[in-house]
């Protein structure tokens, strides 16, 4: 009798747990064409001019946000999803911006510098609750493929947009907010003093090697070198 009761209790608990799980699962928004937004730059961000024209090649764009659902930007009101991975969006925006200033190399061999991007934040961050706080944060590792030297440049872009009541307006505001944050981050990167310094340090004219420096200049013979004072 006692065994039967405990078995009944256990099965009840399992049933409750199962129901809770299915209910929790039902609340997870699913991407549909209605709740999916596209992020594109309104206009390309023009990079700063460098003393010497430099061609960049965009290598890897790696997501380091640790976000298990990178496409989900807003969970409330049926969710708002991105149409592509944040890494793809960032890569496209960066390539379009560099291409607009003719600073994009077609392949790695023809590039002066190779840029690898580590994306730490892309989407909405926790705000005041009164507005949407868009944030894009990444670190670019810029490498000179000839010398193997590299430098890190951090970039952050933020944007604040107002909340909305209707779902369509929410999607519109989120889309504009993330787009503005992406544009701001690219501007921070491409027009930043950190990039200017990194490019200047990595594209320095090659210093004479140690062997070449130790060699005497032409027309010099050691026998001619005499002490001035005896």
């Amino acid at each position, binding site marked *: 009798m006692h065994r039967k009761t405990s078995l009944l209790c256990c099965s009840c608990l399992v049933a409750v747990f199962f129901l809770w799980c299915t209910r929790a699962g039902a609340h997870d928004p699913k991407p549909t064409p209605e709740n999916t937004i596209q992020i594109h730059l309104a206009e390309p961000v023009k990079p700063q001019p460098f003393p010497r024209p430099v061609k960049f090649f965009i290598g890897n764009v790696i997501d380091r946000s640790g976000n298990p659902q990178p496409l989900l930007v807003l969970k409330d009101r049926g969710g708002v999803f991105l149409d592509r991975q944040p890494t793809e969006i960032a890569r496209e925006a960066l390539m379009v911006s560099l291409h607009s200033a003719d600073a994009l190399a077609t392949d790695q061999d023809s590039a002066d510098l190779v840029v690898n991007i580590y994306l730490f934040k892309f989407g909405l*961050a926790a705000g005041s609750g009164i507005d949407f706080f868009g944030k894009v944060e990444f670190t670019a590792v810029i490498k000179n493929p000839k010398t193997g030297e590299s430098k890190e440049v951090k970039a*952050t872009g*933020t944007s604040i947009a107002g909340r909305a009541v209707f779902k369509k307006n929410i999607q519109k505001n989120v889309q504009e907010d993330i787009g503005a944050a992406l544009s701001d981050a690219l501007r*921070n990167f491409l*027009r930043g003093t950190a990039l200017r310094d990194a490019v200047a340090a990595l594209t320095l004219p090659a210093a004479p090697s140690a062997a070449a420096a130790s060699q005497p200049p032409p027309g010099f013979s050691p026998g001619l070198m005499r002490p001035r004072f005896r």
Partner: protein
Amino acid sequence: MRRIFGLFLVAALALSAPALAKDPEKKFKTAEAKHFARAEGVELSPEFSDYLYAELRNELGKTKLFALVIGEGEVVEDADAPASIVIEGTITEYKKGSVVKDVLIGFSAGWRSLRVETKITRRSDHATLQTLQSHVRTSPRWNEKVMARTVAKQIAKEIKKSLTQSPNGS
């Protein structure tokens, strides 16, 4: 009837003209807002600084004093530097308040308090144009980002007021 309509139209135009003229022209080329530093003993979350920075840039854009509000560490053309400013600041004091006092006493007792010192410098010669002190208080039951929003609004308002009034700011 036509005469009355004509008079009404003229009156409407005459009234709207000063309102249109009131729109201030961009006085500065760029404004660079920096992340605010914290004095010793100020215990706020790291996200607070990021949010304050974002809100401040947003509010500075609304003042319509600056042609462009740039991010931290962005390049400014040499020609634009004399008409550009840099905004730096320090959170000098933060009192976290008491929810119990706020609930039991009310009348803003136990509210959070934040003091910020803001320095405005000209980019070209690093001359200090203004030093502002801001103080805001918010309920401890509200999100701390609300406090960042409030202080950003206040700083932007004070900056606008001081730069439009001071002769140095031109």
